[in-house]
């Protein structure tokens, strides 16, 4: 008897966590509504993907991903201005993924190939700074709106974290 309660506790906790890991699929009607809302984003994503599929140079990919970040940043800002922090939060998840998996990872890939004090390094740092600038602008907007929309506070925190990742991605590897 004594072990039943803790065992039940553990099982329920595990079940809850497992349930949480299952991708949350909306009912079809809601999926159709979300598709309507996100169609422009989907089109940009596909166009961006085809562009990336054409690029062999990591710096070019940084540029492509930066353009995508700009687009997502506009979406996030629009959501925030419309008082929709939930959508802003969702969009920021995508933006963070692109900033980390697109911009930062390609900056690191480029960094490995570009020697210091070369024109290419200058280009690398310029592209990093351009991406950082846009992330910072968005961060400031979100920080301002988070005073009234508390749900945005963790979004700002995550954006700061990803900005640091991008900032460090072009650093020379430590000896």
């Amino acid at each position, binding site marked *: 008897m004594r072990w039943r309660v803790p065992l039940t506790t553990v099982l329920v906790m595990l079940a809850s966590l497992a349930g949480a890991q299952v991708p949350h699929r909306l009912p079809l009607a809601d999926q159709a509504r979300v598709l*309507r809302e996100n169609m422009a984003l989907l089109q940009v994503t596909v166009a961006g993907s085809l562009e990336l599929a054409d690029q062999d140079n990591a710096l070019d990919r940084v540029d492509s991903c930066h353009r995508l970040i700009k687009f997502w940043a506009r979406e996030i800002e629009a959501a925030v201005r419309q008082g929709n922090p939930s959508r802003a939060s*969702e969009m920021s998840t995508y933006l963070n993924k692109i900033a980390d998996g*697109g911009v930062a990872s390609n900056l690191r890939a480029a960094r490995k190939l570009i020697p210091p004090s070369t024109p290419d390094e200058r280009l690398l740092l310029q592209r990093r700074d351009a991406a950082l600038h846009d992330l910072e602008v968005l961060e400031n907007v979100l920080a301002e709106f988070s005073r009234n929309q508390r749900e945005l506070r963790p979004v700002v925190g995550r954006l700061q974290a990803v900005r640091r990742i991008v900032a460090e991605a072009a650093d020379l590897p430590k000896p």
Partner: protein
Amino acid sequence: MNCRLACQRLLATSGPRMLPDSVQHHLVQCEQCQRFKEQLDQIDKAVRRIPIPDSSIAKTAFLERFLAEPTLVSRQTPRRMGWNWTLVTATSAAVVLLGLFITGWLRRGPTPAEATSDVMLEQMIAHQLALASADSVNRRVEILAQMAETLDEYTRQLALVAEINDLESLSKLFVDVLGNKGLSGKAELVPALNRKALLEPIVTNLVRMAAAQEEMAGHVPPNRIMAFRRMATAAREARDAIRRKLQEDDVARCSPDGLAVLGGKS
């Protein structure tokens, strides 16, 4: 007394059977019922001979446990028992609520899990990120094929519920992904060495997608047919383009300098 009643009485009488006179009288006259009684007697004897496993150890252990438990229970007053069950129920309820909270928190809070509300967009972004770090043409071709599959799956899934404009847009995205800037174009660049192994499964998938889209076109209202026909045509065109490339390889393989064309491998 008939046979049916006699048999019923025989079955209902256990142990050393003290059968009523009427049954005994019937048995004397009826060979069939006599055989039935003999079989019952055999069963009775056989049952007694079935070996019974020694349960003394398990029985002793059970009895010890059984006898020990009341001692514990006897220490508790009925009030204490009631409180214990209340505690168990309350704990269970709290655990369930905690579980629901965790689930809800993970799903509704501004965390990455929230992004799954638009599963298609999330998958397409995952493909995009894979392309952002894909270093080889082969990998890009694989990812583009996956993108086409994602679009195909969701377009068919939303065939009846999506707005027609959105369905049209999805079908155009599918066409783009399979077109010259996408899968068909990149498939041309796959090194001959890997071409067959990489592209044949993709061709199979394109055939499957085209068939599924044609089938869907036969089931949707007329104003939605065009989107699926467009997708099916794009899938067939991509399939044909890739097949042509594979056939060129076969021809090259058969030519005298084929080995050189295919990078030294047949």
